[in-house]
Structures are given as C-alpha cells and as structure tokens.
C-alpha cells in the first residue's frame, strides 16, 4: 500500500501523524483517501478539482509528480511545500 509522508502543518491536520498507509493507484486517489480519513486536510494539498496545489510538491522516488501519476504499493509519496521566493 502506498505511503504518504507529511510535515507540519499538514501532519497536524492529519491526526498528528507524519506517515499514512493509504490505498490508491494514482497519487490523486491516494491523497483523496487521505482527505477522506482526515477531513481537516481537505483543500490543503489538492484543490477542489483534485489537482495538486501549485505551490505544493509531491515527490515519488525523487521525481516530482502530479495527481494523475500512477503509484505502486511500494511507493512513498513525500508531500512538501515549494521552496518559493528569493
């Protein structure tokens, strides 16, 4: 089952846990399941259309992916804010 890792403040909105085992075959499905289990995180990673927010990065195996990326049961999705600004 894919794993999602979160940092504060997202982890605080997901039951205080930074690691979540979640079902799904795409990044979007996995993150929607995270929202279903932890409603306070709704809208923070994905917008209402299910798209990863522009300034949020989701990395799998060192590669930045979008919501439609296929993920496997051994994959770890790291959710990080963008390094923005100068």
């Amino acid at each position, binding site marked *: 089952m894919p794993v999602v890792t979160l940092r504060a403040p997202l982890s605080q909105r997901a039951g205080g846990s930074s690691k979540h085992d979640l079902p799904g075959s795409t990044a979007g499905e996995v993150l929607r399941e995270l929202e279903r289990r932890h409603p306070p995180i709704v*809208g923070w990673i994905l*917008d*209402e*259309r299910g798209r990863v927010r522009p300034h949020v990065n989701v990395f799998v195996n060192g590669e930045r992916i979008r919501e439609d990326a296929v993920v496997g049961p051994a994959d770890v999705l790291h959710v990080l804010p963008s390094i923005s600004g100068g």
Partner: protein
Amino acid sequence: MTELLVGTKKGLFVLRGDPADGRPYEIVTRAFPGDIVEYAMRDARTGRYFAAHTSGFYGPRLMFTDDPTGEWTQAVGPVFPEDGEASLERIWTITPGEADGLLYAGAAPAALFASTDGGESWSLNESLWKERRAGDWQPGAGGLALHSICPWPGDERRLAVGVSAAGVWITDDGGDTWRTGYEGLVPEYIPEEDRAGTNALCVHNMHRAPTRPERLFMQFHGNVYRSDDEGSNWQEIRAGLPSGFGFPLVVDPSDPDNAYVIPLVADVDRVTPEGAVRVYETRDAGSTWTAHGRGLPGEEAYLTVLRQAFGAAGTGASMELYFGATSGDVFGSADAGGSWFSVHERLAPVTSVRAA
C-alpha cells in the same frame, strides 16, 4: 473601547484601544502568522469573527471563531464544484445578509457564495456563476474579483454586487436571476471607440446607503459614481476630488448624503497625491468634497490604501473611521474624519480594516 480587525500580508492583527485617547491601539493577538489575511470581520448579530486567509502553499480558506485569541475553525467552503473548471483563488469579502444566519462571501474568480448557517458552510450562487461564464468576464489588475456585496436593509431578496472588472450585478429574487447595472459607467481605460457595450467595467468598491437603500456609492477605476435607482444608472461625482482614482469607500450608515473616499494619483501611480494623505468627505451626495488631513501625514507620504482597508464604526458626527496602508500604517478618527491619530505603525502591508 474599539476593537479593530486588521488583515495584512502577514497575518491578522486584532487591535484594541480607546479612540477618545487618540493614542495607538495595542495588539491583542496576531492570528495566521505568515499567511495573507485578505479580509476579516465580525458579524455583529452573533459576535462571530470571520477571517479569509491564504497560505502561499496550501491555498485559501475561510475561518471563524467566537474568540480571536483562541482557536479558529475552518468553514466548509467556499469551494467551487469538483467537476467545474475553477478553483478558489481568494475570498475578498464577507457580508452579513438580511436573514438570520445568512452571510455572503465574494471571491476570486468572481463568484458569490452564501451561507445560511451562520457561516459554517457555504454554497455557490449558480445563477451568477452562469452569467460569469456566459459573459466572458475579464480580470482587473487584482484578479477577477467579486469584492463588494450590498444587501438591501430589511429585504433578503435584494442584493447588488460589484465585480472587477465586470460591473454591477443586481438581484431582486434572492439570487435566482441577475441583471446588470452598467448605465453611466465610463471605462476611460478603454479606447473610446471600443467602449460601447463592453462589460469590462472595473468597479473598485461599492456601498449602499442603508437609510436610502436605492442609493449606492461607487469608487470606480478612475472615477467616483453615485446611483439613486438601485444601481441601474450611475452619475459621476468626482468633481472636487484631486483624482478619480482610488480603491476604498465608506458611507455613513445614518446619512445617505455622507460618504468618504481616499483618492490616489492614478492607475499608473497608485499613491496619495502630492505626498499628502487626505480623506475626502462629501455631505451632499457627491456635489462637493472636503479634504480631511489633520493628524495625517502631510508631506513625503506616498501611501497606497487598498479597497477593503477602510472601515467605520458608529454613525454621524462621532463616527469612527479607520484605514490602513500597504506601508503597514493604520490611522483612525473619532470625529467622522475631522481629526486623525496613528492607530498603529509598522504592521505588515494592510489588506483590510474593519471595526469589530
């Protein structure tokens, strides 16, 4: 004692002080540090506080609380439909409606949301959204924003909203159908030969006179207008002002002839004219204007005051007025603009000011 809610680029500041003292207000609390708080207000009917804030990473949301020094709760919405083509970018304003529990929120991209449960959950006004899609509305410099919501006192079915840059929209049936209020508005930023029939009408701010509700005042992009027929037709009232350009506007709730604006030089130079901060007041519905500057910076002051950064409390000669600038300065008046004092200096750039 007055409580001020000051939204800034770096959080919400709750200030308290006594306007009769003329001394700076104290910071009671700072909420949402690091996030932009575009708008904050308190619903006087319930005492509930609302704040619209946007994380640079995690997007916009609407929060509410009964105690701004404590925990805030995230509202359910406003959001656009999951299967639609839009995502919420920003919440520009929150306005109590005329029925118990009814509130409105104006958003970008331009949309009206309503809550019937005191602001805990929100739904999109679908009929105005369809007008937006059919009308190919275009954004102003600040985005495609529904920023002004003007309820009709005592009648929950009647409402006027202002959109940058898609003019005025009016409903008489609680938002089921909408009509435009375009007549008389002149978009001087469009070549004269292209103005006929355009809907690119850049409303900057609009307020209704509660005691004469068919009257509305508007700060437009380059002009100031008044309507005496519910927003259908508009007449220019800029004569006597140093500029027609500006963003915020305040109307005295008790006097339909009394309104205030803060002119800026022009759209290409959005600062106070001649380096002097002045608030202009009309007591005759825009026929004449009086400049107020006593206690305000009078030289080498080039401030920008944004559309939601001018608020009021009370009415008449003792009406309190407050405005904040992108410099982080907040000013107040306890005598309807006759004299001013510094409420606070060196906050973050101010996006909104409302008296709680």
